[in-house]
């Protein structure tokens, strides 16, 4: 019997926990990708070794489809693994995790297809692949080269599993809402369909753009205040907040192409500031 959605998570936790990762809980803030979690962004900077794995709920307001599209969600889960420095056998470790969740690599076609990763809002980039399983992208595999505009030394290896896709693949389901969430008859739709409908309506129709703009400005200002106070972690949290406001504003369609760039560079500057302060604080502590 194939793994339920929650057993998929538990299996990965067990696997990566055995590899020396700290198993963290989701960060309690809205973010667009698991990478934004401080356990990835901030820990990728500086010389210290670090291994962590966690589930992160991701909010992408523009991807919401009122629960009508079988493959697109405005809120979904990523399973994030970071290993620093990236071990020599990272690909093998990763493939081991696929076998663990029930994918037989002699039956399925697993491929590493070039896909370089870049996050303009984090000033971060890396090289790697999207991992295909029978033509489906199941994981983003990246060796971080820069974060917040700073070189990563040593390099962090990052694995981002798209949990819903992976579960759909394992369970042989064509509609995300049909996924079995557990083995007691609860489906993904039972848990999240209403959320998708309501959040889509909010993000596309209801969200007060003036209020969002205001929140964006306030978060940006708060971030700067934290930077002045040499508090990189709260500063970074405010940068994440600003980033999410920007994403929601985009879903409301109130940001023109020309303005878009300005917002992105504003968020990037905030994130960079937090990264810089983090490195400085580390240096001072050492």
């Amino acid at each position: 019997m194939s793994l339920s959605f929650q057993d998929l998570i538990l299996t990965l936790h067990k696997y990566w926990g055995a590899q020396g990762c700290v198993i963290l809980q989701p960060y309690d803030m809205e973010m667009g990708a698991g990478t934004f979690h401080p356990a990835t962004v901030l820990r990728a900077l500086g010389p210290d070794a670090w291994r962590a794995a966690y589930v992160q709920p991701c909010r992408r307001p523009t991807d919401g489809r009122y629960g009508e599209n079988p493959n697109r969600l405005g809120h979904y889960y990523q399973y994030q693994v970071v290993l620093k420095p990236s071990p020599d056998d990272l690909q093998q470790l990763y493939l081991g995790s696929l076998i663990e969740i029930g994918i037989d690599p002699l039956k399925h076609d697993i491929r590493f297809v070039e896909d370089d990763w870049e996050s303009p809002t984090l000033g971060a980039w890396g090289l790697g692949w999207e991992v295909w399983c029978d033509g489906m992208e199941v994981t983003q595999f990246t060796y971080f080269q820069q974060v917040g505009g700073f070189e990563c030394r040593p390099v962090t290896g990052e694995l981002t599993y798209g949990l819903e896709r992976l579960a759909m693949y394992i369970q042989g389901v064509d509609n995300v809402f049909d996924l079995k969430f557990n083995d007691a008859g609860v489906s993904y739709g039972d848990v999240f369909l209403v959320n998708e409908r309501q959040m889509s309506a909010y993000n596309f129709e209801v969200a007060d753009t003036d209020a969002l703009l205001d929140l964006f400005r306030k978060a940006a200002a708060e971030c700067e205040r934290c930077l002045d106070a040499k508090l990189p972690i709260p500063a970074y949290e405010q940068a994440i907040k600003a980033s999410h406001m920007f994403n929601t504003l985009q879903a409301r369609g109130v940001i023109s192409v020309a303005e878009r760039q300005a917002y992105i560079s504003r968020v990037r500057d905030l994130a960079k500031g937090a990264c810089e302060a983090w490195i400085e604080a580390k240096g001072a502590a050492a």
Partner: protein
Amino acid sequence: MADFLLELLSEEIPARMQAKARNDLSRLFAEFTDEAGLKIGAIDVHSTPRRLVLIAREVADATEASREEVKGPRSSAPLQALDGFLRKTGLSREQLEERDGVYFAVVERKGRPAAAILADTIKRIVADLPWPKSMRWGAGSLRWVRPLHGIVAILGEDIVPVEIDGIASGATTVGHRFHHPGPITIGGAADYIEKLRACHVIVDQDERERIIREGAEAAATAAGLTLLADEGLVVENAGLTEWPVPLLGRFDAEFLDVPREVIVLTMRTNQKYFACSNDEGPLAPAFVCVANIAANDGGEAIVEGNRRVLAARLADARFFWEQDLKVPLEEQAKKLDGIIFHEKLGTVADRVERIAKLARWLVESGVLKADATQVERAARLAKADLVTGMVGEFPELQGVIGGYLAEAQGEPKAIADGIRDQYKPVGQGDDVPTAPVSVAVALADKLDSICAFFGVELKPTGSKDPFALRRAAIGAIEILVRNDLRLNLTEALRGALANCAAQSIDSAIVHRLDRTAVELLEFFAERLKVQQREAGVRHDLIDAVFTLGEEDDLVRALARVKALQGFVETEDGADLLTAYKRAANILKKESWTGPQVMSSPAEQGIPQTGEEDPLVLVEEPILKDAIAEMASGQAGAELPDEKTLIAALDAAEPKASAGVEAEDFIGAMAALASLREPIDDFFDHVTVNDPDAAKRERRLNLLMRFRDAVNRVADFSKIEG
């Protein structure tokens, strides 16, 4: 002598980078061994997603020993000179030879063993191989395209020892990632390829390409379908697999409502699948994917997995397509005023307005015959697809989607085609529109973007052309030439510039209008050279026609250039060019700017009368004519040396002018050809710089007349050779 094997094993190298990496590997290996003086035979290079492989045949055992005698300072020279020489040669004073008061050093180089040179070569290759993007990993500092894991380096049967950032060379590699993940020991170049084949790795990319090409076709044929051949996909899939297995799958036929281009593009770009058709006609609901494994269930699960991925993608595409169908393009077009085309050039709606105006003008001014109303409508709807969901998902299908939507929404075919073809031709070799509405829209699209960007001084510079204006100009040229369109380019460009100015996007455009129009013409002349290069039209001849400054009709200019090329490549032409250059040189050397040569034949006769010519001092035109008439009767008799040339010019000038006027450029060239003998004779028998000042002046004037007559057809000073 022995064969050398090098394998660099890494994590997956992007498919698109492998061909260049193979070439670079071969080039650097040849370069570095040559520098070291190591003789090698043929080099073979191969690649798989995980390996770069080089096999060099017949590598010499060592470099040859050499002995070289170096001359040093005189023995009487100051001590510093000797010290310097000793430092340079690394010898001591006792080792020098002294002959005739001069020191000599004998530098002997022993032959270096091949293994040492190969070890250096490997290090330099890993350091220097130019990847488009490279990275670091772990805690190391080495850079490679992806983490490098192993080096197999074997000369004959011996390992070439080398260590790079903790990676030591050896004889061990791995096979296929899943079929044979364990270590394999390689004996050398001789057994490498076959040992790997036994472990499910086909090392040679050409062989994998062949398997994919033939296997994909066979899979389609077996299903009664025809494969849509795609060599780019063959190469890409060969770069993604070590053990390629083409598999055919099917998708739900209901997706075939979605435009064909969308289905093919989704399969190709997102999934790397080949598409299939029924008897080379309509698209078939099938695909061929290339797996990297001989699956233990025969590929059933792989095909099923891929089918589901494709179905999800096509469902997404169909959702957008159905949404887009519901909104008339006319409605969509209204949203274009919310999209900035460029911060200095207003919105896309502004651009549409300019293109529509220009496209209509092309019809109304008679440049091309088309229904002006249809042309304008096509232009006004052309950019509407930019706000559709479909183009949002597949930006490369802009235009194509608009064309499909227009047709589905009941627009006439000419308009739908005009929308579809507006961006054509994209680069050389692409289809050039020929249907009148398509031509009008496509041409206006290109002229507008070129003029708009030039108008705000965003011109291509050096290798930078961020708005692809060069490509646009070549596209415009191809449309004009292919359709034989007689367009006064200056007028069109000024019109397009005026359109920008009228939108008062940038008031400075108006002030720069004159200058910009000239720059634009030069830009087009430059692009014409590039565009015609492949057709073998010489760039210097294009210059020769354009520098006259009167030519701005590209079709006519090209006819003139081609006639000119036909002429200068004949013996007559080459000879005339020589004479022209000689005349021009003399005039230049003498700084002769002489009296203006006049255009009517009667007036042209005047300088013939030379020093005795009373006209030199006559200013009054009426008198001039009268005296000239008197003089011309005796001119020939008095001037035997110049007579033939004068007569030839008298005959040729009007013919050449008439030829140019009537666009009979071959006729104009023939008129020039008639000057060849007379000018040669003139140079053979006449000394231009005669001591007699009057004769000299007369002859210089005649040379000037000859030069100017030739220049009326083309500026021969621009012609090379």
